[in-house]
């Protein structure tokens, strides 16, 4: 029982981490709270489904293509409507716009695919044994993909020139511009990375979680809670918070009721907001 708890919370936590890192990055770098983040996750899953079953692409090609298309969608959102709304200096209209766009995408997908639930075939059929627990291969695969992606992102931010430019922009936009960093390009790349990471999460979970038109909302609320818990702009805070949330949620779902697992997120958020508004590892921005 206990080892299943640990294994399941680790599996859930890794997916949350993948979603939350992109969300946090977009906010940290571009100062944009993109409520469309959950929709990237959903669109990628539907695209992969459509390419695999309708146009019968091989599964690996369908997955990679859909992740790239969603990344491009992320760049488009950042460059066109979000950049325009950011210039009007009304932060609140940006929130309503991205929320409206998420619902628009949901209704569009509902129109095309119906309210039915879909799923992709497993990427990795063999089930594996972890801590005496049998884990389906697709879930183990999703976990490994998440961890590899986040590790690659950290390495990219720490070592590459582009990554350093992204970090510099998140610390001081004006300062970065004055030393010759093209911040518009930085925003585009950040948007691409964030959307692609959400897309990878969406494709990776679709063999074992249903692809459905309402899937974007939990994929938005959970990363958001995690980002608040971990502190905005802190990648390590996000990683730790993601696993904590995965643990809390699995604990409640196992011992109480799955209906209450989302409540854990809000209660945790409210507690953190009261006790330490900047998050567990966050730095207070002035």
């Amino acid at each position, binding site marked *: 029982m206990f080892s299943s708890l640990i294994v399941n919370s680790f599996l859930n936590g890794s997916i949350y981490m993948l979603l939350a890192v992109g969300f946090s990055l977009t906010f940290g770098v571009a100062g944009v*709270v993109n*409520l469309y983040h959950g929709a990237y996750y959903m669109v990628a899953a539907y695209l992969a489904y459509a390419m695999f079953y309708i146009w019968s692409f091989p599964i690996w090609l369908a997955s990679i293509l859909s992740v790239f298309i969603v990344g491009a969608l992320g760049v488009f959102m950042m460059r066109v*409507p979000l950049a*325009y*709304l950011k210039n*009007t200096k*009304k*932060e*609140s*209209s940006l*929130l*309503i*716009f991205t*929320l*409206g*766009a998420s*619902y*628009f995408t949901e*209704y*569009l997908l*509902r*129109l095309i695919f119906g309210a039915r639930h879909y799923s992709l075939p497993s990427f990795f059929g063999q089930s594996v044994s972890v801590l005496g627990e049998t884990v389906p291969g697709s879930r183990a695969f999703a976990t490994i993909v998440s961890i590899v992606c986040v590790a690659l992102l950290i390495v990219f931010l720490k070592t590459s020139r582009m990554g350093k430019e992204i970090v510099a922009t998140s610390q001081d936009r004006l300062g970065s511009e004055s030393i010759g960093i093209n911040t518009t390009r930085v925003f585009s790349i950040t948007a691409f990375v964030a959307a692609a990471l959400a897309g990878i999460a969406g494709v990776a979970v679709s063999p074992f979680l249903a692809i459905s038109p309402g899937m974007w*909302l*939990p994929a*938005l*609320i959970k990363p*958001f*809670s995690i980002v*608040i818990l971990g502190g905005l702009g802190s990648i390590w805070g996000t990683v730790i918070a993601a696993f904590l949330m995965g643990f809390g949620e699995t604990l409640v779902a196992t011992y109480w*009721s799955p*209906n*209450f697992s*989302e*409540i854990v*997120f*809000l209660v945790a*958020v*409210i507690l953190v*907001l*009261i006790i330490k*508004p900047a998050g567990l590892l966050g730095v207070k921005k002035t």
Partner: protein
Amino acid sequence: MRRKIFALFMIGLVVLLLLLPVVRDDLYLLTILSIALCYSVLAASWDFFSGYTGRENFGISAFVAVGGYLVGLVTSSFNAPPILSILMGFILAGIVGFLIGLPTLRLRGPYFALATLALVTIAENLVLAFARVTGGEDGLYGLPYLTVTIEGSYYYVLIFAIISIAILFLIGRSNFGLILKAINSDEEATRSSGIRVTKYKLLSLSLSAAFAGATGALLAHFYGYIGRDVVFQSNLLIIIMATVGGTGFVLPAALGGITISLLTEYIRAFGELKNLTYTALLMVMILFVPGGLFSFVFAKKASRKRGVPNE
């Protein structure tokens, strides 16, 4: 001048709505107008907090749910007139709004918006988890109607709407509303001029939630039913109504509520396309008509701004 014409228009609209049942004996029209009026109160109460303070409340249906499901609870245990459960919905939703705002409103930026978005999901999960009280998926049927006739219910809703919108509008025009707008344009400056910012935001949210809760109770009595479809599907719609009408002045948002609700009746045939149309409309409005359809009446003249440095 524009304001005088608008005031005349509003008085004319109210007189028209009051006389309508006498002139036309169309029960279908009265029903959809009653629902439209309920939505106009919801849009106005959303605007009273979010439009004034600039903090987006994405969870107004949670407050509607408080009022609506309270009716089910109250009427199952004792026989109370609708006015009593509406008042109780008002008070209870106000308290819930206060408790939600207490931790979340202290923060700036998007935290509040996202917390309220989570709030709706949680409210919906709670409704499902406590199906014994709320009816779960099916909802609660057989609640007592407002009055025995449709005309009577129409007048009930109309008077409720006039009173609620008038209260919200008048408070919005008072110093209280002015302080809320000051908070919207510069929270730090408002704080440093000695105004207790959090107190005003909390009061505004509680009042907004209270009116949403009262309307939830009213809707439950009007339909004789309360369920997830009534409560939670309206969440985004209320925001669309207020944004399309125009935020920050109560009346334009209320007019947006009436317009969109009536429009809903006429594009019902669109089915699934209806929601798509609304969300597309919302995005287009934010990008190209950010002030909304009706707020031009209250907007300052453009010429006055000339020569003033950027805000």
